[in-house]
């Protein structure tokens, strides 16, 4: 309990969207989302390989509801891009991993996911300058977590995937060896699950 849970941490980034870029950003996010569906699983392509993200999402905040009457309801100075993730390990290296993998591909030849998504936000550094600048930008726009709860914060993404695969294998093995002799059972077990 607190800002981390076990080895798991959380990241929330909130960045103002350039007014002339919002529609473009929405289109890029939809491409990202439809790509996920096409893959049959919700994988942000850029996160393949980093293997540290449990859950992540992009949202755009364009208006607020439930505003007090003294404020102009629903009006924001600029829409916000919100990115959130639950991930494994230290925050800084996670941001580096995320940006590295999001820079490896993109929705089109026009640019990487980083350029096409974060590049729509005010103040995001242009490519080719300081290599640390994008990570610094995300960390600067980070909203600190007040409270974080994780049901399996001690386990990494890799451990969860491995455990689920093992569960399947054990299930199959248990059905296979029903009625086998003790010696055959042990031999098959050692072959299937070597120590």
């Amino acid at each position, binding site marked *: *309990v*607190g800002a981390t849970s076990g080895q798991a941490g*959380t990241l*929330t980034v*909130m960045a*103002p969207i350039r007014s002339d870029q919002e529609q473009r950003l929405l289109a890029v*996010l939809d491409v*990202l*989302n439809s790509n*996920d569906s096409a893959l049959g*699983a*919700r*994988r942000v392509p850029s*996160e393949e390989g980093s293997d540290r*993200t*449990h*859950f*992540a*999402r992009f*949202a755009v*905040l364009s208006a607020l*509801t*439930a*505003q*007090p009457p003294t404020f*102009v309801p629903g009006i*924001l*100075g*600029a829409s*916000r891009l*919100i990115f*959130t993730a*639950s991930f494994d390990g230290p925050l800084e290296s996670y941001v580096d991993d995320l940006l590295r993998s999001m820079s490896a591909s993109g929705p089109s030849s026009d640019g990487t996911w980083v350029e096409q998504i974060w590049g729509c936000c005010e103040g995001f550094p242009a490519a080719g300058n300081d290599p640390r600048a994008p990570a610094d930008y995300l960390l600067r726009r980070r*909203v*600190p*977590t*007040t*409270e*974080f*709860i994780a*049901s*399996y914060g001690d*386990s990494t993404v890799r*451990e*969860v995937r491995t*455990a*689920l695969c*093992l*569960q399947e294998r*054990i*299930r199959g093995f*248990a059905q296979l060896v029903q009625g086998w*002799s*003790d010696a055959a*059972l*042990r031999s098959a*077990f*050692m072959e299937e*699950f070597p*120590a």
Partner: protein
Amino acid sequence: MNHASPPAQALTVLTPLRPGGAFAVKAAFWVGDRFPSLLNDLRTLSFIHFARWAIVPSEPGLGCRALLLFESDFDGDWNDYIDSFAEVLALRMKAIWGTSYGFPGPRPTDGFRAYIRRNQLVPRVCYAAVPGATTTQVLAALKLRDAHRSLQTAAADPAMDDATFAARWRGFLTEVQFEL
């Protein structure tokens, strides 16, 4: 638009805080952190993968003092999820969201559901590392893995005969029958 792949769903809620609300939220969590027994009811909600609260500080153009951000990745039906929060965690929800404008209280749940629905932000993109797995399935798989490790060690033990290993195997299956 998507929430997340079934069975995990994504919930993002942003509510404007009342004056002093940020301090009150932090105080509520501070108390919760120091008295873990207060969180026992939260742990009974086994359908939550991850949940978090954050205070978005006021900044020019945001239109209010500060915002309370709540995010959760959970299994199952949206209405059931909100109802469970309202029923099981009524006091905590009141302590947390009572700091925001327009919060009607956790009960009756119709009003609470309407409040959350009005303030929720539908994500454009959702990602889940293991989209098909519920929290219960993940926890079961992790528990099974731990039990399986000791069986692997036993299988490799030359001092153990086959009959003893077979008995261990049957005991293992009995032990983990609900995790398979």
